[in-house]
């Protein structure tokens, strides 16, 4: 040993100092290693070193400068929803970070993968109320799946790997990384190396279900006389659309979706019976109270779906297929819980279930369909009097895009109308804010969706109230030349609130009328083409013009001022008390 060490200095070459990079450069390398192609962001003092590093990575990472951080968050959500990969936001400390909050909360409740990278003041300034310091960790703790503060450059690769793993696995959700300016600037003490995270000791989502749980579920399904599948967003997150279709086709079970579950199965599929919830279809709501076995897949019994939960499906045995075990028994007690990824569970279930003929039971749905069709759909689609109705617009959009578009909606009456009348053909085609109901979601989310799915037509349906919450993102859309088609359904009201005031507050219209700007002039100001359609006779041509336009386009349609969305389950009522008028 000794002899060797003593000759070492002579035979050794001049030691090469490893090239050490700083935290910001490490961050860039980590994003590239993670396969991130697009970032939605907005710079500022506490994230400047990262933006400086980004300058050298422009050919690998497409950074999109939004107009407001809320826009970045919703764009990242739109991107994530259509790609299934985490949307990435990059913003500065303090106000930059707090402006993300709405979007983060929205992503959490709708299980949308997102990684937010947020600048923070230098380590020495932490806790001193320094310029643009906000306790972002504290603020976002209850609305993130995970958050972490990086205070040294060496932490960057491992923490980023963990962030992407947590955001995208199990039940997806938003993750926030707060990185101090000092960590962005300081050099790593070791060469950069990146390894994707594959597991975390304390976090192990169960993908493959337990055999006995699957068998118990299969037994219930095989014995059921009036089985009924309720499908949520979880099926699309798991990319289990094919498995679902095979499952219902083999068993003959009628299937309804939640709002976010729409487009999982084509609207015209013979086994699809419509959607559930406060403004969902008539039959699917009423008949949940008639089924003997409910198969809930990747859905969480939101109160907008259950109405009064104490009166919901008390007659049926419930099979709950869920990746998040804390959802089991949370709202509705499950007789046969199956914890696992929807795709894995359906794959396991498929060989165990028997072919069945449930035609008689399925036809009951058709009876209710006929009633709904006659009392709501036909009048809405064939009116010749008064202003254009929202239903007509959506129906035409659906026909003209052949149900192939990605529909992005905002929140309100237009959202429910879009869901009612668009005939989805392809999976992953409805992007909407379900759990949070965030006004201002659609315009930036549509942009993000178009970035994520450039080959698909993206049409946003937006209320006049919602549009004014994030309309500045027209600038982002124009600057990035993304051919998003946005339709404002302008009723000069905060329509959904007005509807409630009409129905439940004796028409006391308290602060719901809007004095609107000239939307098309605004669009033109941003350099975006558009026009207003006020006449039923022009509607079809207006839509053709919008869809044919090469580039982003804003179409404003002046619609009936005081229209209501029906069916409706009044708040606090049970689903069978659904009203047709």
């Amino acid at each position, binding site marked *: 040993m000794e002899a060797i060490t003593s000759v070492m200095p002579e035979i050794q070459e001049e030691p090469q100092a490893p090239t050490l990079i700083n935290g910001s450069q490490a961050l860039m390398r980590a994003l590239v290693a993670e396969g991130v192609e697009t970032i939605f962001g907005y710079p500022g003092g506490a994230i400047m070193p990262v933006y400086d590093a980004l300058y050298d990575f422009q050919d690998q990472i497409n950074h999109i400068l939004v107009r407001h951080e809320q826009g970045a968050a919703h764009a990242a959500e739109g991107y994530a929803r259509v790609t299934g990969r985490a949307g990435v936001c990059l913003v500065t400390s303090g106000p930059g970070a707090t402006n993300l909050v709405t979007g983060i909360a929205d992503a959490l409740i709708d299980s949308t993968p997102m990684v937010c990278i947020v600048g923070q003041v230098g380590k020495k300034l932490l806790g001193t109320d320094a310029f643009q310091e906000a306790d972002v*960790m504290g603020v976002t703790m209850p609305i993130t799946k995970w958050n972490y503060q990086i205070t040294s450059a060496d932490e960057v690769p491992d923490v980023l790997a963990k962030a992407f793993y947590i955001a995208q696995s199990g039940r997806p959700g938003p993750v926030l990384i707060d990185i101090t300016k000092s960590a962005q600037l300081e050099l790593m003490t070791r060469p950069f190396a990146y390894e994707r995270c594959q597991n*975390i*000791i304390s976090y192990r989502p169960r993908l493959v279900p337990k055999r006995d749980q699957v068998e118990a579920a299969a037994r219930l399904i095989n014995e059921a006389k009036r089985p009924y599948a309720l499908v949520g967003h979880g099926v699309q997150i798991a990319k289990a659309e094919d498995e679902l279709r095979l499952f219902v086709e083999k068993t003959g079970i009628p299937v309804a979706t939640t709002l976010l579950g729409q487009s999982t199965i084509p609207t015209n599929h013979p086994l699809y019976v419509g959607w559930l919830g406060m403004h969902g279809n008539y039959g699917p709501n009423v008949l949940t109270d008639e089924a003997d076995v409910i198969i809930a897949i990747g859905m969480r019994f939101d109160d907008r779906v259950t109405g009064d939960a104490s009166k919901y499906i008390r007659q049926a045995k419930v099979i709950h297929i869920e990746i998040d075990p804390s959802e089991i028994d949370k709202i509705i007690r499950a007789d046969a819980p199956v914890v696992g990824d929807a795709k894995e569970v359906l794959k396991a279930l498929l060989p165990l279930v028997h072919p069945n003929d449930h035609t008689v039971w399925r036809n009951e749905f058709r009876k209710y369909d006929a009633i709904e069709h006659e009392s709501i759909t036909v009048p809405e689609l064939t009116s010749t009097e008064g202003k254009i109705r929202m239903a007509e617009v959506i129906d035409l959009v659906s026909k003209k895009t052949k149900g192939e578009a990605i529909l992005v909606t905002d929140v309100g009456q237009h959202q429910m109308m879009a869901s009612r009348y668009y005939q989805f053909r392809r999976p992953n085609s409805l992007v909407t804010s379900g759990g949070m109901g965030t006004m201002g979601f659609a315009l930036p989310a549509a942009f993000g969706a178009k970035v994520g799915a450039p080959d698909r037509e993206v049409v946003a349906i937006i209320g006049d109230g919602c549009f004014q919450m994030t309309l500045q993102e027209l600038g982002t859309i124009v600057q990035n030349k993304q051919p998003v088609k946005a339709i404002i359904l302008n009723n000069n009201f905060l329509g959904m609130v007005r509807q409630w005031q009409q129905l439940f507050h004796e028409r006391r219209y308290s602060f719901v009328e809007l004095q609107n700007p000239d939307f098309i002039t605004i669009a033109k100001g941003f350099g975006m083409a558009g026009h207003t359609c006020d006449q039923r006779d022009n509607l079809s041509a207006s839509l053709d013009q919008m869809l044919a336009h090469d580039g982003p386009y804003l179409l404003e349609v002046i619609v009936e001022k005081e229209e209501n969305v029906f069916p409706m389950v009044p708040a606090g009522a049970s689903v069978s008390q659904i009203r047709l008028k």
Partner: protein
Amino acid sequence: MTTYTICIFTENTIGLLNRITIIFTRRRINIESLTVSETERKGVSRFTIVIKHDSREAVEKLVRQIRKIVEVMAVFGYLNDEIVFNEIALFKVSTPLGGKALDVETINTRYKAWVVYWGLDYVVIEKTGAETEIFDFFSYLRQQHEILEFVRSGRVAVGKTEKGLVEYLPEAEWAYYL
């Protein structure tokens, strides 16, 4: 109201206490006591949280929500008869010159408490035990002497199973409470 003891095994990271307590506050559940320390395994902390609740179902849901936190390795909810538990209390008792003498024998034999510090004109007595035992001792002492300071810790508890549950952590095959 039933008393539940919730034991949470977590990675030892900053901010976790916050993340855990948010889950209680959001559901408007009051924390009666909370004790945290590192376990014999480095980097693994054990939280012992005592709550009172009248719905077992609600406590089960709470346990699942806690389990959902990324850094949480395992959570156990126990009823009192499923655990061995204790608290520790310190009493600072005034013993002025010429005052009433401390009845050390009674304190030791009847109350199983010990004087752990002799000050110039006070003593500090330590007593471990269940809440009721500690308050029994409190009443006794107050009748005899002036209590200058009194402090009681949160509950510490171990399950009545053979092995310390922390032994199983590396396998990480935690049941999903179903």
